[in-house]
């Protein structure tokens, strides 16, 4: 026994040593051992963008203040999904659930929580409420001192006056504004009161058209235009807001703009949308909650109106107006969302800095040309997005050197270092990330479509923490190019690597594209790079008219053997990777991997600025590069049509350019 201990002691000591070195490196992560972690509940009434943004902002603010769910505080999230009975049940559960604090978002959540918590057993912080003073929870605008001692929060009233000032700034001659409003809505009426005051002050005539239901909105808007309105305004009115198109359409026909108190309306065609940034509202609420958790008395916090403004501008609308409206530069700069003249959203025009510094980690499987291009793209994309390295983010790169066990450790290391967002390059890295990480964003690049790599769902509804740009070669476009270059071709050939998931998937995709275009595809497996040469020879004997090589690591490495076999059989070779054009392919149509990386970085930047990965659909790389090598073409006596050469992004060995 003693002998055994003595013999194993060296190993045990070394292991203990290694473990303690690891733990010592993690010392900062160790949370101060306080006796009891605070328990809070976040209660949101429904899954709506405004409420989801608020919750996200609240969580971020709490984290910045040192309250991390699961680490330094216990946090449970509740959502009533628009159902009032459920909301009541939740409120009771929170009240009797031993929580220290309830944080509610939306007016109904505030109301049911306040009703359940009449005794004041827990502290209640609320946010994303239009007007807390009219919510019937014991708050009084005229007598601020009389309020429940356990209640604190923020009101967020739409910036009505501000949007009129903005409209004036865009068109100083503005004299008449029309508004459609629903007479039975208290919120709408409250907004209208403010609008009337501001218009009187600015010398604008406010034309009003009251409606009772959404079917009347269109006629009401037309009547306003015929009465000479130079612009239409939409306030906080539920009826009108659900039928924005009925206001925007007649206005656009008359060439006059609509401005609104909701940024989302700019997407629907309004010229200006000025509303509250609910992510910021959530952050302010979270800050307030953190103050109270740190010991501040709720009653000592004034209940104020908090409107962090968010402006959306639609340039497509601006171009169609009758009057000389223009967006002043300072306004343009402050716009968080800009819809370009083509109707598409322009990202990064205004670049608000992220709320905190993000720790980014990039994890890749091996070093390979496509991987390096993608990584380069991510680096330049992050710079392009307007984020500043050092201030907004820090990025570390981990490469597993082809070893899966090491890649596991790389992910563990990233989690231990509390990375905030993880980039993955290659499919195995994405799969491992999806397995290990569910609580922070993953942005992938140069991977198979995640739906083929284990995620279930659709491109729009997917894992809530995953977003990115997947890689799929432009097979359909390639078929068109082949038709142009070789009109008489019938059979295409390619080699594939049965051991590489990308390769097999690309073979299937190519098969589909080829059959759709009326070609037959002869696919030949090669199990190792040494087999590629023989497999290529066998392929040339299968009656193919052209070798069109799909992308995989093995056949890219052994590409020269494919070229040799093809030259022997006088067959042209096309490919899906730009580098191949310099290594014997006549034509390549490739995904621009650098651009894919860049797009992935832009997605990451959106996440860092507050968007949720869940709302960002999975997309494929969009940019392709056409490269033609005329030197190889001449050697092979292959004629590349002039139209294709004209289109090419890069032409190698053009006539008259020398070698």
């Amino acid at each position, binding site marked *: 026994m003693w002998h055994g201990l003595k013999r194993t002691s*060296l190993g045990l000591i070394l292991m203990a040593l290694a473990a303690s070195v690891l733990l010592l490196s993690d010392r900062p992560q160790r949370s*101060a051992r306080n006796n009891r972690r605070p328990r809070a509940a976040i209660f949101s009434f429904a899954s709506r963008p405004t409420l989801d943004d608020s919750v996200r902002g609240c969580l971020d603010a709490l984290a910045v203040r040192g309250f991390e769910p699961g680490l330094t505080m216990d946090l449970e999230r509740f959502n009533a999904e628009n159902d009032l009975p459920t909301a009541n049940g939740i409120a009771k559960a929170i009240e009797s659930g031993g929580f220290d604090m309830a944080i509610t978002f939306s007016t109904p959540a505030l109301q049911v929580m306040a009703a359940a918590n009449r005794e004041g057993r827990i502290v209640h912080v609320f946010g994303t409420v239009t007007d807390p003073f009219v919510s019937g929870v014991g708050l009084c605008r005229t007598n601020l001192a009389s309020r429940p001692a356990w209640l604190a929060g923020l009101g967020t009233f739409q910036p009505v006056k501000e949007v009129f000032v903005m409209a004036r700034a865009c068109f100083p001659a503005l004299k008449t504004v029309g508004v459609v409003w629903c007479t039975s809505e208290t919120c709408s009426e409250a907004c209208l009161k403010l609008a009337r005051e501001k218009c009187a002050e600015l010398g604008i005539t406010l034309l009003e058209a009251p409606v009772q239901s959404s079917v009347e909105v269109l006629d009401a808007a037309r009547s306003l235009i015929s009465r000479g309105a130079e612009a239409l305004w939409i306030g906080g009115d539920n009826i009108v807001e659900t039928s924005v198109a009925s206001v925007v359409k007649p206005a656009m026909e008359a060439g006059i703009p609509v401005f609104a108190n909701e940024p989302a309306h700019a997407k629907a065609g309004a010229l200006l949308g000025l509303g509250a940034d609910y992510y910021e509202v959530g952050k302010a609420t979270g800050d307030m909650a953190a103050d109270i958790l740190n010991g501040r008395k709720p009653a000592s916090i004034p209940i104020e109106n908090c409107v962090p403004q968010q402006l959306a501008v639609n340039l497509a609308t601006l171009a169609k107006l009758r009057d000389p409206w223009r967006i002043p530069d300072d306004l343009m700069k402050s716009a968080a969302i800009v819809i370009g003249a083509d109707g598409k959203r322009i990202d990064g025009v205004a670049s608000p800095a992220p709320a905190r510094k993000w720790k980014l980690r990039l994890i890749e499987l091996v070093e390979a040309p496509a991987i390096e291009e993608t990584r380069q793209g991510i680096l330049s994309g992050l710079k392009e997005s307007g984020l500043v390295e050092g201030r907004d983010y820090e990025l570390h790169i981990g490469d597993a*050197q*082809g070893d899966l066990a090491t890649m596991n450790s790389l992910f*563990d290391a990233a989690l231990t270092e509390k990375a905030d967002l993880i980039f993955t390059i290659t499919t195995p890295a994405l799969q491992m990330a999806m*397995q290990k990480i569910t609580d922070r964003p993953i942005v992938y690049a140069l991977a198979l479509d995640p739906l083929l790599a284990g995620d279930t769902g659709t491109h729009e509804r997917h894992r809530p923490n995953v977003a990115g740009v997947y890689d799929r070669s432009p097979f359909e476009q390639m078929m068109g190019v082949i038709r142009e270059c070789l009109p008489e071709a019938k059979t295409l050939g390619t080699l594939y690597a049965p051991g590489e998931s990308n390769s097999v998937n690309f073979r299937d995709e190519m098969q589909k594209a080829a059959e759709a275009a009326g070609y037959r595809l002869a696919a030949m497996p090669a199990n190792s790079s040494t087999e590629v040469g023989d497999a290529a020879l066998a392929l040339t004997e299968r009656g193919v008219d052209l070798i069109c090589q799909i992308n995989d690591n093995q056949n890219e490495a052994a590409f020269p053997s494919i070229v040799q076999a093809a030259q022997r059989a006088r067959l042209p070779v096309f490919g899906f990777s730009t580098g191949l054009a310099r290594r014997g392919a006549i034509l390549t149509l490739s995904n621009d991997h650098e651009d894919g990386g860049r797009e992935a970085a832009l997605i990451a930047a959106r996440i860092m600025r507050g968007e949720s990965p869940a709302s960002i659909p999975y997309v494929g790389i969009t940019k392709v590069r056409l490269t033609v090598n005329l030197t190889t073409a001449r050697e092979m006596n292959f004629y590349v049509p002039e139209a294709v050469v004209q289109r090419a992004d890069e032409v190698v060995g053009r006539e008259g350019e020398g070698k």
Partner: protein
Amino acid sequence: MTLLLGSLTIGLILTLLALGVYISFRIFDFPDLTADGSLALGAAVSAVLLVQGLHPVWATLAGAAAGVLAGAVTGLLHTRFRINNLLSGILVMTALYSTNLYVMGRSNVPLLSVRSLNSLAEAAGVDFFGRADISLFGWPVMVRDLTMLGCIAAVVLAACGSLYLFFRTQVGTAMRATGENPLMIRALGVPTGWMIVVGLMLSNGLIALSGSLLAQYQGFADVQMGIGMMVWGLASVIIGEALVQSRKLGLTIVGCVMGSVLFRLLIAIALRWGLNPNSLKLITAVFVLAALVLPSLIGQWTRRKGRA
């Protein structure tokens, strides 16, 4: 802490691989290259069965059983058809590559959304602790990581214990003697051929079990996941032997465990300190070298001190 738990888990999973390599290389002196194939085979069989909805425990055992079969084939090729031991391993390993592709139907089977040991461990842990994360000595820890580690540790402990007991039985002793001195043991009437076959079955069963656990831990099975793994297993065995400075059965088994875990811990340190990724392989080589050289240096040093 996550990294420590993660590398302990991976280290323990690969301990099974090291034990398998130990049996073939050390006990039988049989350089068995089947390992690369049987690791992926275990992963492939388990993954496919898990996707079919089989209970993870059965799927894992089936993976190990597939490895046992692969080992039997290598053993029979060598003993029945008198094929050179290296060659029979290479043959089976090569054949397994295609077999694995055939088993999986493609080269990569994701296990993210199926019930696996990992999800079972997570559920059990959450049941036991009542929530998904707890604080361990002040470090926040995912319960899933902790229970998975416990689960794997139990499997490894059971494997080590039963191996030890098995090799002390009459058959086990005969097996060890087959590797040490085949002429002598044959003279005693032991069929050495069968001993080798059974030994290889045992070895590859452990390796496939390791592959099955690895696939479930990392969330996918890939046909290429076995490539080069045997080398790491061998490195762990050698590090372990250097650490315990003994070729006694019990100690070498413990050495295998320590070697494998220590190896992963050292890699984790290298990663945690953010060393240049391109120099990672060089650093791992230096680690192995240090682990090999240090114990004998220490030995020399203590002997010299003893003489003085």
